[in-house]
């Protein structure tokens, strides 16, 4: 059923804070280990001890460097990338079998591993590189937003969140309903100027990214400069020592 739902009751997704992510890969390996035994099981790796180890990962962490305009200073940005669970994803509509679909209930884009034929066309249609082919399984794999965790009654309610979000040590990943403007994630997006990746492609990603904050490496208002060396430093210290005595 590759026809997209007209609307979804919720728009579950992630908000990723690029100002806080240190690139520790916790979300990447937590994703791999949950999904290799969860909904996407297994995420089969190739040549694990050899020259070309690789396999499907549903979340990968890029490193970018942004140069300031003067070319001198720069910023390193760690950039986790996974499925954005678009509102109008082409990866779903191109699917010939209906294995790829968007859930009407919560907007999660999923692949049905029982009907996917592994034609890879969805990966061609996705601009975000979110879909990876599993050579051993012969089907496509992608972020499920941990659909088998977020509703999983075997977990305590506070653990019902995607593995990547639960793992993230810095708290750079947030999960929630981006369709509800009062939700914490929506408020965060509003407050921090959350943005879409490749908005011009028109797929309306649900996941949002929060931009790095401005650096604070210039003089700030309200902070006085310290006095210049004028040879009277010792006097000042002695006066300070005297004040201590009077306060005693």
């Amino acid at each position: 059923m590759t026809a997209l739902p007209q609307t979804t009751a919720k728009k579950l997704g992630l908000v990723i804070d690029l100002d806080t992510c240190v690139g520790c890969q916790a979300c990447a390996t937590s994703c791999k280990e949950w999904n290799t035994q969860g909904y996407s099981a297994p995420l089969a790796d190739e040549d694990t001890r050899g020259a070309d180890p690789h396999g499907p990962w549903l979340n990968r962490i890029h490193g970018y460097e942004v140069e300031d305009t003067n070319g001198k200073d720069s910023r390193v940005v760690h950039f986790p990338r996974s499925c954005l669970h678009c509102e109008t994803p082409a990866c779903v509509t191109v699917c010939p079998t209906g294995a790829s679909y968007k859930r009407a209930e919560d907007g999660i884009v999923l692949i049905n591993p029982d009907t996917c034929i592994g034609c890879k066309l969805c990966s061609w249609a996705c601009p975000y590189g979110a879909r990876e082919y599993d050579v051993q399984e012969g089907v496509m794999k992608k972020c499920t937003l941990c659909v088998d965790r977020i509703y999983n009654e075997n977990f305590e309610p506070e653990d019902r969140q995607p593995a990547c979000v639960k793992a993230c040590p810095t708290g750079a990943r947030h999960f929630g309903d981006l369709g509800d403007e009062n939700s914490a994630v929506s408020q965060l997006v509003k407050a921090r100027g959350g943005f879409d990746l490749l908005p011009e492609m028109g797929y309306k990603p649900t996941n949002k990214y929060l931009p790095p904050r401005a650096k604070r490496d210039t003089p700030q208002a309200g902070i006085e400069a310290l006095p210049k060396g004028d040879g009277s430093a010792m006097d000042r210290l002695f006066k300070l020592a005297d004040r201590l005595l009077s306060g005693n």
Partner: protein
Amino acid sequence: MSSEPVVALSPKTWDEIKTTTCYMCACRCGIKVYLKDGTVTYIDGNRDHPVNKGVICGKGAAGIKQHYSPGRLSKPLIRVGERGSGEFREIEWEEALQTATTWLGNVRKTDPKKLAFFTGRDQSQGLTGWWATQFGTPNYAAHGGFCSVNMAAAGLYTFGGSFWEFGEPDWKYTKYFLLFGVAEDHGSNPIKAGLGKLKKRGAKFVSVNPIKTGYSAIADEWVGVRPGTDGLFVGAIIHELLNAGQIDGDYLNRYTNSPWLVIDNKGAADHGLFARDENGETLVWDAHKKTAVPTSDHNAARALMGRFTLPDGRKVATSFQLIAERYLSADHAPDAVTERCGVPADTIRRIAAELAHVAFKETVTLNVPWTDFTGRRHETMIGRPVAMHAMRGISAHANGFQTCRAIHLLQIMLGTIDTPGGFRYKAPYPRPIPPHIKPTGKPDQIWPNEPLPGPPLGFVTGPEDLLLADDGSPQRIDKAYSWDAPIAAHGMMHMVITNAAKRDPYGIDVLFMYMANMSWNSAMNIPDTLKYLTAKDETTGEYVIPKIIYSDAYASEMVHYADLILPDTTYLERWDCISLLDRPISEADGPADSIRQPVVEPERDVRAFQSVLLDLGARLKLPGMTTPEGQARYPGGYPDYIVNHERAPGVGPLAGFRGVDGTQSGKGAPNPNQLQAYIDNGCHWFYELPDEHKYFKHVNKGYLEWATGFGLIGKPEPIIHQLYCEPLQKFRLAAEGHGAIQPPDGHRARIIEAFDPIPFWYPPFEGDLVDEAAFPMHAVTQRPMAMYHAWGSQNSWLRQILGRNWLYIAKERAAKLGIADGDWVTVTSHQGQIKGQAKLMNGVNPDTVWTWNAIGKRSGTWGLKKDAPEAKQGFLLNHLISELLPKRDGGYRFSNSDPVTGQAAWYDLRVRVEKSADQSNISGPQFPTLKNLGVGQ
């Protein structure tokens, strides 16, 4: 249209969850291990655990691949070919243990110090150190000598705590955080979580690091300091603050030795020591009485500054007077240091102003009354919310001890230690400065078949505590606690193989190591290290290091150079305790410890090293490990020891659930059900201090009394910060010719310079000794976020993330050197040359090149195929780093270490970088492929 497929939303993919403690790095987070049919299927963070509170890192979540690694060893091995040939024979444990017992027994009954027992990333030093003591050898240490002893010692000799893992920034209240040289080191998840909190609160985070990745990438300000010059940067900030009088005089006067009087008597044997009264008590100057009074006189009008004359005529100055005089000198001004440290003078001035502003104008006040050690009641806790933290970038330099002391001086001048928003102690710290444990191993302390009278490692306070042979030469094989490195509180593992092979100061018979890849990524100067490991005595034809016993869980490079291999379990297969007696996991809010429990049984013929050690101890009849009847005291192995061993009456490895009924904490009789109590509690124990004990612990009467009762400290006495470090002056006086124990002449100048009781900066030795024009660049490593040493970089998941490394170089500098992105380059030091592939970036100090550490592997090891990129494109800087400094005048080659602590100075490396004539896609040097010893799959 068909309906959506039905998705199983509540699958239970496990049939059991067990808690334990992670060991994917030194952070020691609580984890939950999910099992299905006895197989580990998923690992995540334990939400109730004090360290990680539910989160997990990139390493921890890849633990499954560590546990099921094809690189694991599976059976005891004994060497049958030459060392390095990979020719081993599988043997049974009984044969392995008998062999080890014979070898070790022969040493013990002749000369116990001919056993060198060194453990690597050991988290059971409480046991291993005690075992060495019982064996009777002083030649014991873990890997701290090349890790962080500079940090540990500087802190313990200054404020009775330390960066490293003995304290943490007050993430809740700090408003300004200065981080020096930290890249995914200790406290990995707590630091990440802390940074997240700072970001949420909008606190300012400044990272001082030549490299702008990881934590530094998200800093509000990056200070791209030149390696080894942090001390200049910090000194200039201190200069600025003193010049402006922006210091917490009250804190200095009350809680530090700033007002203590120092004798000014140049050339005399008491010069630079504290003036003391007839009772031996240190003195302060009472400005009202205009005389010296004991420091215990809390009502004295203490002069913070000044030079005075004592009634006996001796001239004195307050400690702080001396500090101020030093740091106010023009050579500490920002303009004087900017060029050498690479930080603009305006930046230094601005940061100093920001620190002063936050410390003194944005104070944090908690409405929590408390009483200080003098009995004075404080209605509130007033904090100066500036926190600092530091690690390898400070530690791994030959000036690291003094640089770290300078950072502590800065913290203390601002009045930030253990105040709200500052840097907080974690139990068992604060402890007396330095802790009251002396190293053991003097000639009259080592006897055949006898234990040492005390632990091998401790804290010296003067030349009389050094471990010297009768001729003044080093007593220890690593030369720790000798004039080469008097305060080598963690030993010097990096020197053991070199010294043993050179029989300097003497030859050994057995080298026994655990979990330390000393023939590869943990060694400096690998090519020579391999020669040392295989060197033979010309007359006997025997190996110069005759017997090497090694225990490891994995087929590491070191396995190939050992004679007897004792295969260890993985971290999910064993018992462990994370003990307050060792390197605890306490929080600033209270003491904590934890255990590991086996969550799966090994399917290989391997045994936990700690249990093997106890077994060997019993076979050797070591006193602590044998009953009076000659039976094993801990027949149940390590778990038996964890529960029943008592270091002092009522004090054991674990502090929680003590007493027969398990209701006591800290002290209490062994509880036979203690381990089950831990398991029931998620494998950890935590005691939260009451609010009035949470801050100012070093001078907090209530806390000090509680800590004494709990067994953390001996007496409820205040821990007065030692800005002026008198023990250093004692060594200096000896070098100047005073006292009975004096260094050899060749050492005197070095001791006199380095053992300054007031922190100062000196250039790292390597840069000072080699031609800077020939080696103009610095080369350092960073620990990748997702890997902890060689054992992490062989992980089948993690090696997909980083299967090789590059040499990162500043774009601008690369252009000048004619190096393009992707070019293969040679990196040359005075020691050797390597070849690696260059990657250009902006976020690196232009005088610095760097790479990720411990990724380069030797072909054929760790269960990897011989053409693995780790071996063919990966490389190590270790080949370039000498364990010895270039010759000094007189020809002696000092260890490439901090002269105070013996900390290996592997960040001092100086190199030149050139485009390689050989652009083939292969790194250098390449070593012959080793035979794969891993269990495979």
